[in-house]
């Protein structure tokens, strides 16, 4: 007999009726934005987990014995540094490949005539960010003209791009949630004005403000659950589609896949949205009702 129908016919107005759709669309955008932020964070984490390699170039010396001794001292000093996994001298074959673009294929006897530097790869443990200044100071204490260079020049740019994407995605997600709050406040205030006679009746029957506000809150929450779940499902399908589907055709549009924690965090977005929507509706209704006596 008794129904859980709201006392206020809030589904009867266009603004309220479309609230669920609006929420769905905005939750879709918020989830996508957060997915971008989380994928960017994932990329950053993966980059930071990759061991970093620094190349030390020691200038050529006339006396091979002196060169060998310098190399041994530099290697010993570097291997003493914290975070260094190992050091390796770049082989002559690799050196040949490096100079090939400038000198072509160089015969072994000709190479001896070239003042080629001795190259030393220094590999750091995963997650360690090399302190290039300290490293250079240490090397140059032994070989003053030594050059230090971090291998993979694109890495810095990659990191920077991922960081930007992370902030952009996070910021866009927050912005969409803020828009959601504003939309709910505006719709609630409009509904309150539209249903002023019914609100007046409820208050005449003794309904306190919190009872009337609860009507708006419940309606907003129901719209959030309906619209939010649709928006979330659509966003999830989009993320899965972008990340996994291209691999079926051998493509890789997104270089990282969401981690289990990312899925959990994404699932929190509609929950957070529903919470914000409910609070925003309550806030708008309570403030709107305060104008009435």
């Amino acid at each position: 007999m008794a129904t859980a129908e709201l006392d206020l016919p809030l589904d009867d107005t266009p603004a309220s009726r479309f609230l669920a759709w609006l929420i769905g669309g905005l939750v879709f955008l918020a989830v996508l934005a957060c997915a971008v932020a989380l994928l960017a964070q994932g990329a950053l984490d993966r980059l930071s987990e990759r061991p970093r390699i620094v190349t030390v170039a020691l200038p050529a010396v006339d006396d091979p014995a002196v060169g060998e001794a310098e190399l041994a001292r530099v290697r010993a000093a570097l291997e003493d540094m914290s975070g260094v996994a190992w050091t390796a001298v770049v082989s002559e074959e690799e050196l040949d490949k490096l100079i090939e673009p400038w000198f072509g294929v160089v015969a072994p006897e000709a190479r001896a005539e070239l003042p080629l530097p001795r190259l030393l790869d220094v590999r750091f443990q995963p997650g360690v960010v090399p302190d290039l200044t300290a490293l250079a100071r240490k090397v140059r204490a032994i070989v003053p003209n030594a050059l230090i260079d971090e291998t993979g020049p694109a890495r810095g740019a990659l990191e920077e791009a991922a960081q930007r994407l992370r902030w952009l995605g996070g910021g866009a997600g927050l912005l969409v949630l803020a828009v959601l709050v504003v939309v709910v406040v505006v719709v609630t205030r409009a509904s309150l004005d539209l249903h002023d006679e019914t609100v007046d009746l409820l208050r005449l029957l003794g309904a306190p403000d919190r009872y009337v506000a609860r009507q708006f809150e419940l309606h907003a929450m129901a719209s959030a659950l309906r619209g939010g779940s649709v928006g979330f499902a659509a966003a999830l399908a989009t993320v899965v589609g972008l990340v996994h589907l291209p691999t079926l055709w051998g493509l890789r549009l997104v270089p990282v896949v969401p981690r289990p924690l990312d899925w959990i965090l994404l699932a929190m977005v509609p929950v957070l949205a529903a919470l914000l929507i409910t609070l925003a509706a309550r806030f708008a209704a309570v403030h709107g009702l305060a104008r009435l006596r």
Partner: protein
Amino acid sequence: MSTGSGMAVDGDRSGATILQLHGVGMRYGSADEVLRDIDLTINAGTFHYLVGPSGAGKTSLLRLMSLSVAPSRGRIVLFGRDVAMVERDELGRLRRRIGVVFQDFRLLEHLSAFDNVALPLRIGGADEEQISSYVSQMLAWLGLAERMEAKPAELSMGQRQLVTVARAVVTRPALLLADEPTSNVEPARVERLMFLFGELHKLGTAVVLATHSRELLRRWAFPVLHLDRGRLIRPVPAGRAAAE
């Protein structure tokens, strides 16, 4: 009950004071006052008709008494509280002790007859079992057992009026204000409604019933409050009021 003249009238059982109006005036916007210098005391367990020609201010007086509008001057004391001084939440509690039968029904069109009647009980926080029992009994007693799930638009005018009455009395209010509650109801049901109001009155509810019906005044004799051009004139016995 007593008016500004200080006269005691029939039907005054001198119960606790429910409502007092002191020098009350009321106007809509910047128009002339529709009510002037109203002094009135309503005690528990009293029954009064409110009569007067159209435009005399009956509905306005009932709206004032139900705290639907504020007076432009004067003071209203309801259940011992000056309503101008009470907090918002307290105002709700005071209103919950008043039952109002609106002349224009004011039913919620999207709710069934049952849910319309259940509204004040839900607002008061009654549990659903209690609501189901009270509302079903009330509607059945008023002859609407078969129409509980009907929406107001599916009901006749008389049935709507009965639903409005049921909503007003289902909480057994301390003060019942009824604006022409029998105007659309068929004669057989008028008897039943008046019996209901009489029973509430016997249980201690103060009843103020605005009417144009001489039939009511003649058949159920209670004191009459006469409004004329916004002024409350001294009470007259029901028999004489009917004759007038």
